[in-house]
Every structure is written in structure tokens, then in C-alpha cells.
């Protein structure tokens, strides 16, 4: 009898011929996260991953991996030979005296000589006969002890529901425009749940924005990294471009011009990182820069697909996800960011593209150089 952490996955199990690729990727992602535990090994075993350990605490291992995308459930399990006596002993060791219980069996190995109900009955009888106060309750038990008979057998009573989704990087890589707000981390989270590896791009306006504003975004990226290992963050100096827009262009177009240049820079960073798409937290109609006309205008500068997973979301939905994933409390810290420090009184909410281009023309002698410089000077933070 041996203690393991049992990892079960959801959607991956439905994959066909490429299932091994998804499984291996998940295994690697888990292995990277568990690198700090020197005694841990991970084994693939029939649609399951077993995390073996000698010294480390089971709880700490679970805590380290529970948020990783691709995992549907994690259980603290006992692994025993598929032998009814050993299974029964394992179930007894998990049973807490005095509580009503039920044994639930899944027989993955159809060659096992007993059927599932028979296994449950025999194991249950063993527990009953060895615990004076034990009581079976199949309708409303206080404890459910689960038995999974495979090549070996897993016995466990406590499973944690995880976030499922697909393992990070199986969905490719994309650049997330990460502001300090509530929406963009949620957008990143949603795409990451589909296996997308994230390169976060943050624009700072130092010295107009304080150091704390950047720290806030670092904390957000770190939170995303908990779900999707391998997040990196580019902190792009954007002040010079903003000042140039203010000096030379019609201030009404400030927001739309800023966003277009942000998209251009983000796309360049995406290319550098071999990412194939951009992600934004835009939600239609939420603010002036998120009208269809504005989105059309910002979209127009990119060749890559732009994913906007929140586009049809109500703000309340977004807030609920942000709270669930732990980004909300960071996002609501009130430090100014690059989008809030300079704001025209009357922004152009439905910009016409030819007028936008007319404004951009005023920067044509400097902007390419400034954009290249911003990409070059970006600070890269890895998690």
C-alpha cells in the first residue's frame, strides 16, 4: 500500500490519436511545477497520472498543482495491487470510525474476477467487520470511499475538483495585452484554459505611473502563471509614444491611437516569441474604446487573429471569474495605469478610419522608431 497523488483529466480523455501528446504535455507541466520537490516522480497510468513521493507532504504537492489546466480531479489515493484483500485493507485505513460510509467501485480492468457491485460489497463487509461502530449508508453517506480497479487499484475518499481545460501550450501561444484592470487577466485565464501559453504585454507610462502599478501587473501575471505555467511578462515603456500623440495629434483620438500602437507593439512581441495570436479583455460597449468602430480600428493594425473571449460578457460575469481566480483583489488596487493617466474629456468613441489615419500621419516621421525602441527596451519578467 502506497500513498500517491492521483491526477485525473477530463477533456484530454476524449482525445483520439493525439491523446499521448496532451498527456505528455500535462505531465511535463506538472513536473515543472513540482521541480521544487526532489523526491517526486510522475507516472502515466491508463488515463491517470500518479505522482509518487517519499518525503514530501501530499497536501503541499496538491496545493502546487491543483490550478494547472488540464487536471479535472486530484485525489489523495492509496495504490495497492488489484487484490481484494489489499483493497479492503486500504479502504479500512481510510475509513473514519463512527461515520456512515459507502464504497463506490469502478472496474477499469474488466478481467478482474469480481464485478463492481461485488467489489463494493466485499470491501464494505470488510470495513464493517473490522470497525465496531461502522454503518453503511448508500443514500446519504458521510464518507464515500472510491475504488478504481485497474492494473493496480486506487483507493481514495477525498477528491478535489480542479479547473479541467487543456494543458498549457497544447493550444499554442498568444500575447495577452495585460492592463491592471479586471478584464484582461480574465481574458488571459479563459484562453489559457484552452491550452494557450501566455506572453503578457504590459504598457507602462513611467514616471507618470507609479512603480506600484507595475507591481500590480506582475502580481496578475504571477496569478495567471499558477494556472498556465510558463507565463512571461513584457513591461513596455510607452510614455514617449503617449507624449508624442498628445503633442502632435487631436486629443480626441488619443485613446484610439494609443490602442492601435499597443496592438502593433504587442504583435511584434508576439512574433518575437513565436506566438500566433493576440488576446484582449475587450467587452463590447463597456467603455468608449470598446465600440465596434473602435475595435474595428484597433483590429485593423494587426495581421494576427485577436481573441476577445469577453466580448459578449456582462461585467458581472467577468468580475465573478476574476474573484474565482484571485485576480479581482489585485485588479481593484487603485494605481493609475497607462490608460488612465491621460484621458481626453471627449474621446472619439466611433472613430472613422480615414480620420484616424490622418492623425497617425502626424507621427509618421517618428513613430516607427519609437515603436521599435519600445519593443527593444521592454523588460522581460519570467515566472
Amino acid at each position, binding site marked *: 500500500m502506497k500513498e500517491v497523488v492521483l491526477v485525473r483529466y477530463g477533456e484530454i480523455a476524449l482525445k483520439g490519436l493525439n491523446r499521448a501528446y496532451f498527456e505528455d504535455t500535462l505531465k511535463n507541466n506538472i513536473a515543472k511545477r513540482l521541480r521544487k520537490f526532489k523526491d517526486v516522480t510522475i507516472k502515466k497510468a491508463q488515463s491517470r497520472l500518479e505522482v509518487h513521493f517519499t518525503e514530501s507532504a501530499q497536501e503541499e504537492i496538491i496545493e502546487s498543482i491543483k490550478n494547472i489546466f488540464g487536471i479535472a480531479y486530484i485525489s489523495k489515493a492509496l495504490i495497492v495491487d488489484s487484490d481484494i484483500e489489499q483493497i479492503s485493507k486500504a479502504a479500512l485505513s481510510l475509513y473514519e470510525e463512527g461515520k456512515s460510509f459507502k464504497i463506490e467501485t469502478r472496474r477499469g480492468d474488466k478481467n478482474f474476477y469480481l464485478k463492481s457491485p461485488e467489489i463494493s460489497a466485499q470491501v464494505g463487509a470488510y470495513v464493517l467487520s473490522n470497525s465496531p461502530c461502522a454503518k453503511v449508508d448508500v443514500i446519504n453517506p458521510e464518507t464515500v470511499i472510491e475504488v478504481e480497479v485497474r492494473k493496480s487499484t486506487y483507493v481514495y475518499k477525498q477528491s478535489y475538483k480542479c479547473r479541467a481545460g487543456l494543458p498549457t501550450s497544447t493550444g499554442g501561444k498568444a500575447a495577452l495585452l495585460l492592463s491592471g484592470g479586471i478584464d484582461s487577466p480574465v481574458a488571459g485565464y479563459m484562453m489559457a484554459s484552452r491550452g494557450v501559453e501566455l506572453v503578457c504585454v504590459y504598457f507602462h507610462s513611467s*514616471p*507618470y505611473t*507609479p512603480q506600484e502599478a507595475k507591481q500590480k501587473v506582475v502580481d496578475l501575471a504571477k496569478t495567471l502563471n499558477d494556472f498556465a505555467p510558463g507565463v512571461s511578462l513584457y513591461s513596455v515603456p510607452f510614455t514617449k509614444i503617449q*507624449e508624442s500623440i*498628445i503633442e502632435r495629434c487631436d*486629443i480626441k483620438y488619443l485613446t484610439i491611437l494609443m490602442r492601435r500602437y499597443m496592438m502593433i507593439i504587442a504583435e511584434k512581441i508576439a512574433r518575437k516569441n513565436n506566438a500566433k495570436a493576440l488576446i484582449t479583455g475587450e467587452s463590447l460597449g463597456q467603455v468608449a474604446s470598446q465600440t465596434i468602430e473602435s475595435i474595428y480600428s484597433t483590429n485593423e493594425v494587426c495581421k494576427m487573429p485577436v481573441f476577445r473571449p469577453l466580448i459578449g460578457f456582462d461585467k458581472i460575469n467577468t468580475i465573478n471569474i476574476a474573484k474565482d481566480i484571485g485576480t479581482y483583489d489585485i485588479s481593484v488596487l487603485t494605481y493609475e495605469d497607462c490608460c*488612465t493617466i*491621460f484621458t481626453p474629456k471627449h474621446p472619439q468613441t466611433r472613430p472613422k478610419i480615414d480620420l484616424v489615419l490622418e492623425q497617425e500621419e502626424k507621427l509618421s516621421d517618428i513613430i516607427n522608431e519609437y515603436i521599435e525602441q519600445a519593443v527593444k527596451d521592454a523588460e522581460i519578467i519570467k515566472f
Partner: protein
Amino acid sequence: MIYFDNAATTQPLTEVIGAIDDALKNHYANSSSLHKTGKQSKELLDDARNYFSSHYNLKDGNVIFTSCATESNNTVLYSLLKNYIKKNKKYNLVTLKIEHPSVYNTIKYYYEDSGVEIRYIKTDKNGNIDVENYKSLIDENTLFVSLSCVNNEIGTKNDIALLSKIAKQINPKLIFHSDFVQAAGKFALDMDKTDIDAISVSGHKFHAPKGIGVLLCKKNFKIAPLLHGGGQENELRAGTENIAYIIGIKKALELSEPYIADPSDIIKMRQYLISNIQNNLSDVILNSPQDISKASPYIINMAVLGCKGEVMQRMLDEADIAVSTSSACSAKKRVSRVLIDAGMDKSVAESSIRMSISRFNTISECDKVTDEIIKNANRLRKVGHYNK
């Protein structure tokens, strides 16, 4: 690095560090111990205490070494509650809204909902006290007056000798306390010849390290200790005395004496910095009093209109110049409470910075700071209109 943030804290002097180092190595014994080396520590402690008594001419009173001025101020305010306030009697306290948080917030903490009336004296925008208003607030129920000698943000200097005299003329029984933190090591004070009952001092504002403060009070003021234990500091502040830092703060004050006697160089530097900036940059408002008799020359608070103070501070920081937007103790708040409470417009308060100099700053540093402020102001004013 050009350090213009000496009101927040100062660099400990080499001589002070040396004296502390020596004390840590050679006089580490507990001053309450009965052995020879303990007695030596006791002598050094008494020597420092006597020095402070004589420096402030405190003839009959207590010199209590504390951990900081916040502790000194808290001790004073707690003592009122513990030893003076009786049930069913009417009291009022008179103070300023623009006091340091360790006075302002502590008064609010102890007295806001206690039935004791807190009366705030009117000031003008430069922090100068309206003396007529001050007189009108003091009456027979006034238990306590607390006025800083120098305001830590604006640099306004109150004539506490005169103000304490006025207060006691109206009500001789009241207790007059002064937060002397921004004045210690810079201005002289004769406690015996004035009506001031207690002052709070902090070492790190005059080139001693952080972690050492003093509370000086006349015998008539009954202290209630905040800390209880071994009965140190004449039963007024328990805890083993920090001999090394006490020697350090004494040394720092000794070394400040020539500058207390002759502040002319600092005054020149202040005037130079102010006129240099005002002569070369438009729309600069001096928040500190212009008149040097009403201002500490060490603190210069000015608003560069159209430029957010916090952005200016970060820009100067990038050029290795350290200034503040408000008190370091309240720097996390975006706009200075003190400037707003002094009656300044929000836009002026938001565009204010505090430059606080020491005897170690130079005229050429003032030139560099001026140049940087002008350069940044020009940059900020170009976009300032849209910078919310």
C-alpha cells in the same frame, strides 16, 4: 544622489556612528546592573540625560528616552487620558489640523469619541496660526494645547514661546506640549524660561539613527507610562535603555550646536533655492512662509503648477534627486492632508513637492535640482492638461 528629503530622515553622522559603534563594543552592559561595567553604562546614561536637560534648560523635570517621537507624543496624549481626565467634567484640547499624524491621529484615536472636545486652530494657507482665533479657543476647560514648533510638511515655524505664554495667561493650569521634531538640532529652546511643559524629539531628524527619541517634560506634567516592566527611566518608560543610541543622539545634538547658533548658511541656501526656481520658472507657488522668521529654513514646500507632485517626484528620482510629495509618514495618500487642511486648493496641493535640506547640501546641488525641476516642468506642462 542629491538628498533633499531631510525632513523625512537624515543621514547619520560618521561621528555619531563612531560613538554608537564604540558604545556597542565597550558599553553594552545593562545600566540597571550593579557591576562596574553596568555602573559605567549608568553614568553614560545620566550624562546624556543631563546634557538634554541642560541643552533645553529643563531645570526640574524628566528627560525620558523613548524609541521615537511617535512614542513620545503617544505618551503625552495617553498621560492626559490616564492622569488628568476625570469623569463628568468638560474638557477641550486645542491643536492644529496640520499636525504630524503622530499627534493628529493619536488625538483622534484617544479623544474623538470620548466627550473631550477637540478644537482646531485656524491657519492661513502657509500654515501660520491665526492668533486671535487661537486665543478664542482657549478657555478654563482647556486641558491641553499641542502645537508643533515646525510643521513637517510646510515648514511653518510657530513661536511656541509666545503661544505657550498666551495659552497660560488665559488658563494657567493647561498643559502645553510641542512636537519639536523638526526643530530639534536646528533651533534653541529654553524650557525654563517658557511656558512649554513638554516637547517630543526624534534623533533621526538630526543625523542620529532611527529608533531613538526623547520626551522632555517639566515635573508638573504627570506622565503615565505606555510601557510597564522593569521601571526604567524613572518608572516612566520600561525597557532596557538603548545606551548606544542614547549616546548617539546626544552626540548628534552636540554636533548640531554650531548650526543652531548660526543658521545663516542654511537660510542662504533656502533663499537661493527658492529664488533660483521662482526666477527661472513661471507659476511656482511657495507654500512655505516667505518670511524666514515664520519658516524653518530647512523645509521648502512649493507647488509647480500644472505638474503633479508625485510625477515630479518620480522624475526627480530618475535623476537621482530625492524629494517628497508630503510627509513620508503619509506618502501613500495621494494628496497631502496637511496642505488640504491648511486650505490650499486641491490642484495646488496635488502639484506640491517638499524639499528639505540639511547642512550637508550645497548650492551646486540647488542648481542641479532647479535645472531638473525646470526641465521636468516643461515636459509635464506640455501634456499636463490631459494628465488627470
